[in-house]
């Protein structure tokens, strides 16, 4: 049973049921008649001529579904939108991935897609911010930029002959540290104008990756993109990745204060609650949940309790119905 798995008391169950029913009634456009499962024939008007799209197949002149989902029609095109499937990248999507492998001039990233994505060394800005040809030395130093298992933020560049390519041509992309990576079903993250968010009041960054990976971390000031060529260019040398032997000074620099850590956890739990309830994940809603939890004086761990979840569901009903009235 994939529903919501929470130890609910009787009253909580009733409240949650009510909230979900209300949500259903608000989003009235969904008609269950359009949902199909594998090998259901999709009724089409053959005189017009149909274009069979994703998730359909022709069987003795009938259009038949090959995945479970909802039938969508755009003019002549008939396709099935899957209920649950892996992330489908689109050009320009902001994604978060984990480095699987460091290879020749490229990193391989797991981005929750069918295949691993490729981030070329040449399609990302160097940490020193200088635009130049990548030399063999840069290749040797690749592990200083990203290592295996690092969490990286990047943009989808497009499909090339050898797979899905990413790019990271700005300061806002790159390695993510001092924070939490959350994995949610990709359909909960909708494409928006903004995927990078800075929650000033809490001092945290929130990145909503289109692939369902969400990053919550300490805010890092984006430095100026273009740094002038400086003296440091003097002696090129092979750098060693020095992850484990940070100097004390560096450790101090990397220290995250307790207050911020708490906010990170709070935001992360807000995302967890939303994914548990199956609600869309947007900045506005996350902020609402954080504020709600603070105003109720809840501890961080209590946010995952069933009581709070029910409350969030009810708040969501309120929010959506008020949104509807405005329109």
């Amino acid at each position, binding site marked *: *049973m994939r529903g919501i798995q929470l130890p609910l008391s009787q009253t909580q169950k009733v409240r949650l049921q009510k909230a979900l029913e209300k949500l259903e009634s608000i989003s009235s456009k969904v008609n269950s008649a359009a949902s199909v*499962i594998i090998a259901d024939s999709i009724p089409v008007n053959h005189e017009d001529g149909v274009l069979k799209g994703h*998730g359909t*197949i022709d069987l003795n002149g009938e259009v038949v579904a090959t995945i479970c989902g909802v039938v969508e029609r755009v003019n002549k095109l008939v396709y099935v939108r899957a*209920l649950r499937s*892996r992330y489908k990248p689109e050009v320009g999507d902001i994604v978060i991935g984990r480095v699987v492998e460091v290879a020749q001039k490229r990193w391989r990233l797991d981005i929750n897609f069918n*295949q691993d994505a490729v981030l070329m060394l040449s399609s990302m800005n160097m940490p020193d911010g200088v635009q130049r040809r990548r030399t063999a030395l840069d290749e040797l130093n690749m592990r200083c930029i990203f290592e295996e298992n690092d969490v990286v933020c990047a943009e989808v560049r497009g499909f090339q002959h050898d797979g899905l390519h990413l790019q990271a041509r700005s300061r806002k992309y790159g390695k993510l540290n001092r924070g939490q990576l959350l994995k949610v079903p990709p359909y909960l993250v909708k494409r928006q104008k903004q995927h990078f968010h800075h929650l000033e009041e809490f001092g945290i960054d929130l990145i909503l990756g289109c692939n369902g990976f969400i990053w919550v971390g300490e805010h890092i000031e984006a430095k100026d993109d273009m740094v002038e060529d400086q003296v440091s260019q003097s002696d090129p040398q092979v750098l060693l990745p020095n992850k484990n032997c940070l100097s004390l000074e560096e450790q101090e620099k990397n220290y995250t204060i307790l207050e911020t850590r708490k906010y990170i956890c709070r935001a992360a739990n807000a995302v967890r609650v939303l994914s548990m309830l199956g609600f869309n994940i947007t900045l506005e809603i996350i902020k609402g949940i954080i504020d709600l939890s603070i105003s109720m004086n809840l501890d961080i761990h209590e946010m995952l309790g069933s009581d709070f979840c029910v409350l969030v569901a009810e708040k969501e009903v309120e929010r959506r119905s008020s949104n509807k009235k405005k329109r």
Partner: protein
Amino acid sequence: MAGKGGATPATYSPSPTTDKQKPALFKEDWVRPDGRGFHQCRPAFFRTGAVNAASGSAYAEFGNTKVIVSVFGPRESKKAMMYSDIGRLNCNVSFTTFATPVRGQGSDHNEYSAMLHKALEGGIILESFPKTTVDVFALVLESSGSDLPVVISCASLALADAGIMMYDLVASVSVSSFSKNLVIDPVLEEENCQDGSLMITCMPSRYEITQLTVTGEWSSPKINEGMQLCLDACAKLAKIMRSCLKEAASDSKE
């Protein structure tokens, strides 16, 4: 099995009773251990979404046979594998230590894994995910006869749940033969003393068969009867599976 025990007193295990039962089966008024009719299947139960971490999963229960199947992927094939235009299917069937009445090792079952692969291969549109692999892991929680058919049906449901393109759901049913009787969906006791078995895996709404396994002695009229029996049962089983998916689809929508 019992011969060994005489020489060295091994650890205790319940004595296998199947040998003694065998003569009883030839009697005219024989009834099945669970009191079913000869052409009656066990009640089937399916549920999708049993494993949260998997991209798709299903749980199936046929009488006492309980199976859980999880599907991962499609994900990138291992580097060592050669390039291929079509997707790969990787199946693995394993048993828990407590699956059988005699406590076992809980090991992988290579024969079943290969059979599961063959049975599912025909139902999946492998062209839809080139260069990638789909992993199907089946775990038999409790083995009580007709394990493989249950695993196959459950796996096709898990694949559907994972959003993998398929021609049709794959349903599977087996039949045991006893001298002149045919018994559908045999339980463990019956499987142990059968004369022959027949398993059909088919896609009912396309009326296509993806796998047919016959063991033991069969005459042609009997095989015809057995196949007809299986196909009918598969069609009914597919109906149950579809209703389970329908239910899941209406649940997950808001």
